[in-house]
């Protein structure tokens, strides 16, 4: 039914050519007016465009608590938002590029996969947060894993799967992800009235009958943590079917996606053997969402060095991080490089810090910091902390 898409990109380092070469797209209209300030007046990501690159926009508090209360914003950034008494994200080129692509996407075509990659601390996760906010405003069903490393590197528990021989469940993490999913999609699920297509039998007495609400499935996973993993598999399957039949649009956003392909997890079986991520029961469901054999969806993934063991953090390129299997699984995908701050972004960030009174104005400070931090946003944040 689905043919492998013809466009093939590998290591397209220049994001500009990304837009022009992407078949389904028309070039976005460039903005006519430009506001020379570090604060963006438009807080709705639906209306932001390339003219706003480098500016900060405020994410409303209720949206933050809805989308990111269970994760999605890095911890160091969350501390900053508390100190600044507001959550402001910088509008950056990679996220705007991807949002423009999504806006002009033909959803009857197979699912495009965007892969954000870049060095540590350049703002991949916050770019994803921006895209997730866009997805929320644009009415996508969000399948968002805030940080896969948490499941694979620091699982809260593990138990052998009862339904699938040789598989391991990480039910506590999965149950908390279901809460996250429920938080993010509660409004949409109420409105869209999505129904399950088949009956799922959990035990003799418990079952989720066909044509029941999708939320019932989620609630069952949360209430009966023992079945959380199976619930997620069922849920992801349903989401795929629903999107295929055009009942909803789905945004799959996974941070630290390469952890699905890194063999050394910290999950152990009862015999203390290391579990390969493919033997974690939920992996299959999420991997099936990142294939191109469905439609009405878009996948934005991050490959990150931090999702794998420290000894192997030698390169940030997708081919290295995904490995052969992962690369072939995603191929063809659209790589999007996230860079450190450009000059304009750096200045805007420093202005924002000064306005929030985080950094005291000092002549010559900007030049020095831009050199020392090498325009890496995370390093800059750390350097500015004691100033």
């Amino acid at each position: 039914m689905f043919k492998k898409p013809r466009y093939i990109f590998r290591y397209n380092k220049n994001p500009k050519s990304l837009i022009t070469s992407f078949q389904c797209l028309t070039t976005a209209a460039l903005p006519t007016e430009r506001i020379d300030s570090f604060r963006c007046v438009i807080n709705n990501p639906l209306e932001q465009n390339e003219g706003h690159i480098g500016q900060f926009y405020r994410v409303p508090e209720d949206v933050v608590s809805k989308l990111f209360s269970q994760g999605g914003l890095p911890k160091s950034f969350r501390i900053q938002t508390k100190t600044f008494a507001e959550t402001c994200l910088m509008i950056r080129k990679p996220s705007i590029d991807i949002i423009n692509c999504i806006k002009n996407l033909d959803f009857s075509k197979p699912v495009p996969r965007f892969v954000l990659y870049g060095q540590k601390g350049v703002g991949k996760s916050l770019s994803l947060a921006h895209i997730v906010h866009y997805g929320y405003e644009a009415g996508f069903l969000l399948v968002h894993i805030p940080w896969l490393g948490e499941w694979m590197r620091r699982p809260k528990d593990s138990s052998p799967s009862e339904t699938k021989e040789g598989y391991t469940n990480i039910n506590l993490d999965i149950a908390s992800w279901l809460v996250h999913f429920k938080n993010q999609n509660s409004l949409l699920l109420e409105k869209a009235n999505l129904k399950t297509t088949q009956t799922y039998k959990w035990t003799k007495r418990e079952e989720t009958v066909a044509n029941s609400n999708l939320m019932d499935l989620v609630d069952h996973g949360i209430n009966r943590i023992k079945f959380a993993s199976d619930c997620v598999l069922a849920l992801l399957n349903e989401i795929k079917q629903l999107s295929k039949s055009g009942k909803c649009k789905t945004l799959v956003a996974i941070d630290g996606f390469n952890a699905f392909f890194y063999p050394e997890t910290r999950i152990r079986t009862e015999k203390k053997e290391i579990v390969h991520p493919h033997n974690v029961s939920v992996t299959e469901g999420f991997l099936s969402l990142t294939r191109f054999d469905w439609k009405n969806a878009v996948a934005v993934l991050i490959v990150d060095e931090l999702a794998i063991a420290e000894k192997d953090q030698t390169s940030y390129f997708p081919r290295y991080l995904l490995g052969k299997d992962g690369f072939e699984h995603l191929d063809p995908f659209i790589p999007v490089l996230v860079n450190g701050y450009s000059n304009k972004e750096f200045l805007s960030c420093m202005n924002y810090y000064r306005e929030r009174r985080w950094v005291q104005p000092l002549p010559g400070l900007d030049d020095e910091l831009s050199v020392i931090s090498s325009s890496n946003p995370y390093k800059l944040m750390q350097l500015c902390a004691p100033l």
Partner: protein
Amino acid sequence: MASLKRIFFGKHSFINQRNSIYSLIQQNGMSQYPSYYIQPVYRKEAQEELEKSGEIMKITHVPTRAALNDQTSSVYQDELVNLFINYVMRDGLKTLARGLVEKSFENIKRIQLEKYHKAKTEAEKQAIEINPKNIFHQAVNNCKPLLYLTPIKRGGVKYQVPVPIPDKRSQFLSMKWLIEAAREKERTVHFPEKLAYELIDAASNTGKVVKRKLDLHKQCEANRAYAHYRWS
């Protein structure tokens, strides 16, 4: 006799020579630099000043020591903070000490900014000092004692005699007290956190360290009767 004399003087002169060599080494201490090496001028403004006054021509060809690790021309470098970092340091773990002080500066900012955002009127907001360096300087200044007690033996009895304190000593005591106060904490509280609170307290002229200074002053006041032992 003559030979004896020669030996004596010869020996004497030898000892003298050895003494002078010894004193030369002593003067230079453990330094890897010979004594004629001059101290580096590492601040940009100081260099410009030298250039303006023409002094720079005098030292152009004089061998100069390399600048120390913490002597940088960075715009946010601060001598007093560097000194403080050295006082915090234990076992030569300078990176750790610097990290602790920087973290406590960050905490100061977070605490003050929280107050700033809570304040309702503009005037209240303006009154809150956020710059951690200013708070630090203010705190050190507020904790400096004016007098201290020194034991002086008179008639077989040691008296605690109040004595005016040199500026450097009082600065040292002030910083030492601040660090000691910050180290006196629960195990669960981290040093930077406690130091931040101590600095903020001291900057507003309250808190443990300022009280310690006042206690010392009180003690000096009580012992004023012994003050004349300083010179008699």
